[in-house]
């Protein structure tokens, strides 16, 4: 025999649970929209961009919601979806824009970077799988342009400079 008071307490707890759930969903939506339109955060998990970026660093990026893809320049470090593997991301430097000549030792057939695409390369050429592996990458795959490394914090860092 359950007392009426116990039933009311149970209903009250269910209501509190549902209210918490709604607030979490709302917070999730706000976070998702913020990371799509304001700033996004990524943890680097590859070493193809050493010595610029190391595995485990936390970076902040300008997300595609406010990024003008046509203003990207040679030397910009960007995050992009992997052209050969769904649901994976790569972090590389733009070294060629549309119309640029493709590197001499590229084994693929294209001679120039096609319209709407870019040539990506990792700073650590020895280990990087990048456009030299899979060719030019469509701009539509770009998911952000790196702004800076926030952890570890280094006030003298220089990301977007092209070093030969």
């Amino acid at each position: 025999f359950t007392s009426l008071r116990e039933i009311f307490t149970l209903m009250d707890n269910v209501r509190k649970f549902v209210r918490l759930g709604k607030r979490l969903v709302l917070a999730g939506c706000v976070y998702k929209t913020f990371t799509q339109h304001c700033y996004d955060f990524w943890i680097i998990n590859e070493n193809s961009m050493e010595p610029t970026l190391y595995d485990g660093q936390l970076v902040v990026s300008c997300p595609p919601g406010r990024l003008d893809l046509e203003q990207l320049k040679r030397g910009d470090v960007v995050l992009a979806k992997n052209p050969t593997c769904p649901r994976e991301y790569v972090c590389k430097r733009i070294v060629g824009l549309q119309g640029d000549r493709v590197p001499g030792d590229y084994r693929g057939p294209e001679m120039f970077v096609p319209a709407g695409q870019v040539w990506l390369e990792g700073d650590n050429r020895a280990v990087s799988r990048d456009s030299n592996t899979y060719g030019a990458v469509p701009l539509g795959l770009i998911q952000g342009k790196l702004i800076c490394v926030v952890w570890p914090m280094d006030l003298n860092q220089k990301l977007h400079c092209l070093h030969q």
Partner: protein
Amino acid sequence: MDNVRRLLINGGKVLLAGCVFRTFQNHVCDFWIIAGNSMEPTVYDGQIVVGWSSGWINLNNLKRGDVIVARSPTQPKETICKRIVGLQGDRVPANYKGPELFVPAGQVWLEGDHKAVSRDSNTFGAVPLNLVQGKLICRVWPFDLSQEKINKII
């Protein structure tokens, strides 16, 4: 002061609703207005379709015959709507003038149903799966309960 407060609260509610709507659009279900005639007679210019967003579908489970919406590989601000006719490993159509013989890993071969006017993989080659923005479910405008299924099995 009270009116300012009420305005801010209502403004906040509108922003919140916008965030929820946007997240829903990007991660569950979205609608698109068809522009162009490259998918006739399946869908026509000006029709409205709904589909699952790329966050909701399993990109690895897309099949030949599915109609998808994707970012254009040659014009990043444009979205294209085409049918998947080839998956990774499939042989590329014989009359394709580009160099690839097979659809590379993680990519698909797209073709519009209206072959004469469609600019698709026959023009720009295989398209990475990560450019896919959604998979169509059905047409909602003009509304027609007896419409043919958009996604076919080929």
